[in-house]
């Protein structure tokens, strides 16, 4: 029982990270049909920001927001430089462009800061545990889950109650008609990228909290998980992405706990195999594509 509860907490924590990444991927996809491989680089950027600021003894109250801002900033810059010229191009074209951009950045980082992983000096409280009777829970896991829930609520509020949020939901439905409402297309897209990048930055804080080492390729693994989660939920559906994130997190933790030791290295392959089988029955994910923002 104790074991089960701890694994559930673990699953919620991992699921939160994936949900944040998947939500960021889905927000951009829902509006632009862009499968953004460079989303992983937002995570990496946040990681390096934390590494350098922590190494410079900046207080963590400032480092955490900086990481989020770094993610958002990189996202906004890439939107302007790489994705705006390609807006409206075929899904395949945009996907490939983002794949290329992602690799270019990874290698540029290798050239500039080096391929060697750098250890981020996280504050000590992230390593402490809460003792509830016989159950030990990491404070970091609690923080991860609670913050994620709060942020999800905030985003839900934003999408429902602000004009730009509403316009983002409308743009997911029909981009051209949204412009006919007199709403600047660029504003909607830039805000979507900012939110997407900020979510990646937040995810990075928790992700690196669990394994505090950043390298140029750090972002790729959580990105892949975000993709899988978003596809499970039905790419373009925001609630679907969040749901997919938690489902994936739970699945991963469950596999890790139950599979024989020799197979834990193959969890990604198992998850992809499950994804392909699931897509056989529901080719557009659990929430389908068309329900896009409807349940927000």
């Amino acid at each position: 029982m104790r074991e089960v509860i701890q694994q559930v907490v673990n699953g919620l924590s991992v699921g939160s990270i994936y949900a944040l990444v998947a939500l960021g991927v889905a927000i951009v996809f829902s509006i632009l049909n862009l499968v953004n491989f460079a989303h992983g680089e937002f995570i990496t950027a946040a990681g390096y920001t934390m590494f350098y600021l922590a190494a410079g003894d900046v207080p963590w109250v400032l480092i955490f927001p900086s990481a989020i801002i770094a993610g958002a900033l990189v996202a906004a810059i890439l939107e302007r430089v790489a994705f705006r010229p390609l807006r409206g191009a075929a899904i395949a074209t945009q996907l490939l462009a983002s794949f290329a951009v992602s690799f270019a950045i990874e290698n540029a980082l290798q050239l500039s800061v080096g391929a060697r992983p750098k250890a981020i000096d996280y504050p000590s409280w992230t390593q402490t545990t809460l003792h509830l009777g016989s159950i030990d829970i990491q404070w970091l896991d609690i923080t991860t889950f609670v913050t994620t829930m709060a942020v999800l609520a905030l985003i839900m509020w934003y999408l429902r109650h602000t004009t730009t949020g509403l316009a983002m939901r409308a743009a997911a439905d029909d981009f051209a008609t949204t412009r006919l409402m007199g709403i600047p297309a660029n504003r909607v897209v830039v805000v979507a990228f900012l939110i997407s990048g900020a979510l990646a930055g937040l995810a990075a804080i928790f992700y690196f909290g669990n394994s505090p080492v950043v390298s140029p390729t750090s972002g790729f693994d959580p990105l892949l998980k975000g993709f899988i989660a978003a596809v499970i939920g039905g790419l373009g559906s925001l609630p679907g992405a969040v749901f997919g994130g938690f489902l994936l997190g739970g699945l991963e933790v469950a596999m890790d706990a139950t599979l024989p030791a020799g197979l834990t290295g193959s969890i990604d392959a198992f998850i992809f195999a499950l994804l392909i089988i699931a897509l056989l029955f529901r080719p557009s994910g659990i929430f389908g594509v068309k329900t896009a923002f409807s349940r927000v």
Partner: protein
Amino acid sequence: MVEPSAASAEGEPEHLLELQGLSARYGSLVAIREVEMTVDAGEVVTLLGANGAGKSTTLGAIVGLVTKCGGKVRFEGRDISRLSTEAVVASGITLVPEGRRIFANLSVEDNLRLGGATLPAGEYAAARDEVVDLFPLVGNRSRTLAGLLSGGEQQQVAIARALMSRPKLLLLDEPSLGLAPVIVAAVFELIAQLKSRGITMLLVEQNVERAMEIADRAYVLSTGHITMAGDQLSVAEIEDTYLGLTSSRSGDDA
């Protein structure tokens, strides 16, 4: 026919909207060629023509959704040819697009809110009251997902949404398209109601008879340019152009 509210008194420009030699193309395909057209404040003008004649392209070019390759669009005397779609809308022209294009996954209320997105904060409530007065449906079913409404109801939402921005000129692209005959009648009644309220409209239609009933003047497009214009055109004559029977004829200008 012209409503007294129309602005013609002071030294204001004669026409609300004026197309001067407007041309547009898709790639190498010229869609409209040197279209000349005017709409005055308070008027209802209809733009007729067969499928592919360039009617929707003309509207798209006015609001900047279709790239222009020549000519000018003047609105209230100002050249708006180079403005972005959102800037054109902000200047007072709203398009109700073909096929309604309501935001199906949003509630009726949210559709209205987006329609009024360009309004100053203080005017929203008043604009909404006006629109609800005109379309009781959007008030009664404000919380319904717009995609769940019937075609005729969706058309009402689309027009209501467009009116939320209090446009000086309303462009309607085939509002009767794909609707049952009874509903078509209702939609035209609604347009007549808008007209009686002094709303200036440019109406693109395939339904020549209905459009001619309601409009003050008509233009006929065939294969990308204006072949007829005036206020005395006969339905039979116009329909002949659809079959390519008539060559061009300049009508008696209003």
